């Protein structure tokens, strides 16, 4: 029987408990124990960034983190990012700039981009490219993703959400 452990942590702003296998990684906990499937499995080895989440204000690969290590910490996933105004501005930028094709890399890209924008208020193209070097995309060729992040970073204020498509 595998060893289990109870943890308590904040997920997307809400305090909660979870019981996890001690050997489980945070990605599997999010997807299978908690049921939030927005964070994706891309490789399980930290080489693709599809599983990027934020923990205590920094981005990291959830496939490289033990679930038990979430105890006492504050975790944000894509579902939490796009619940607040700042996340909406980033999502709108991704949509408007055509940064989404198959969309599989998008949650990880956005979590990393959001972290990047918190560290660098107005990053230029070079800074964004380096900042996203740990996130693989096979569809877009990255250009429109970089454009979206640069555009989002050059907005002076956070605008309210404008979900939906242009006419």
């Amino acid at each position, binding site marked *: 029987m*595998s*060893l289990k*452990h109870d943890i308590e942590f904040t997920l997307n702003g809400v305090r909660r408990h979870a019981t996890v296998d*001690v*050997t489980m*990684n945070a990605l599997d906990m999010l997807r299978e124990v908690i049921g939030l499937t927005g964070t994706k499995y891309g490789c*399980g*080895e*930290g*080489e693709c*960034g599809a599983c*990027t989440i934020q923990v205590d204000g*920094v*981005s*990291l*690969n959830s*496939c*490289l*983190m*033990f679930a*038990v*290590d979430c*105890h006492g910490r504050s975790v944000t996933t894509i579902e939490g990012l796009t619940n607040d105004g700042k996340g909406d501005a980033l999502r709108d930028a991704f949509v408007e700039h055509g940064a989404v094709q198959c969309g599989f890399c998008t949650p990880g890209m956005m979590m*990393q981009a959001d*972290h*990047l924008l918190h560290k660098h208020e107005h990053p230029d193209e070079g800074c964004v490219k*380096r*900042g996203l*070097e*740990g*996130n693989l995309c096979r569809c877009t060729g990255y250009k429109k993703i970089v454009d979206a992040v640069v555009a989002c970073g050059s907005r002076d204020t956070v605008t309210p959400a404008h979900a939906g498509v242009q006419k």
Partner: protein
Amino acid sequence: MSELKHYFAPTSLDQAVECLKDGDVTILAGGTDLTPQSQAGRIKFKHTLMNIRHIPQLSGITLEGKEIRIGALATITEIMEHPLVKEHLPVLVEACDHFASDQIRNAGTIGGNICNASPAGDTLIPLLVLDACVELASMPESKIYRHCMPLSTFFVGPGKTRKSLCELVTGVRIPIPGPNHVAHFYKHGTRPALDISTISIGIAGTRKDGALSNMRVAFGAVAPTPVRAAQTEQALEGRTLDEAVIEQVAAIARDEVQPIDDVRATAWYRKEMIHNITKRILGHVAQA
């Protein structure tokens, strides 16, 4: 299925070294190496999984006398952004900047890096040329015992170090470089980061009135561990760099290393790059 029977998250160093006494412990720090290795079955868990992230003595980057002390839990990002490191150890910042990805830098720890002992370990090369020492702690009897070991003697094989199963790496200490110190790091791969280097080179020493002394040269990815290049260091000691000297030293460097062929590169190419890049770096040193 697994041997793992006990999970423990100590909140003091004493608790941690006491737990380590029987040596049947797998240590969890940042998790960036342990998670994928254990999930893939390459590392099997021992009886206890010990999460060391809550031990206060393992964190922080501080000035202690003439040394900078970096706690084992310092992440690569924390290291490269810390004012003390930026001011005194820019070659370490350079290596950190080419390390993996932002996500991995945010979680990976220097203690984990050192214990993982990868032959291509990016942070290990500057630490070697900066004469770093590893801090170790254990509890051989009833009291905690702490000592330091030079990093240059710490690695014994790929993934293998002199740390015993009862010991914990608590930090790394780096003497603050003196005046006229020069240091360079170069990582050769196909990308700015997220790449296991084909070869990496660190060169440091003192350059006064053109003459080099106290030279330290380290190479990565050309041996089973990151290595100091004794012959290359000797060839530089006391010399003043000119084109002929640089070419001579680069040839010695190429001959000194015995790399292998693997999926990333052949031994021949690695030797060529050691030669060409050593030459390039020494050219920068000469112009500085």
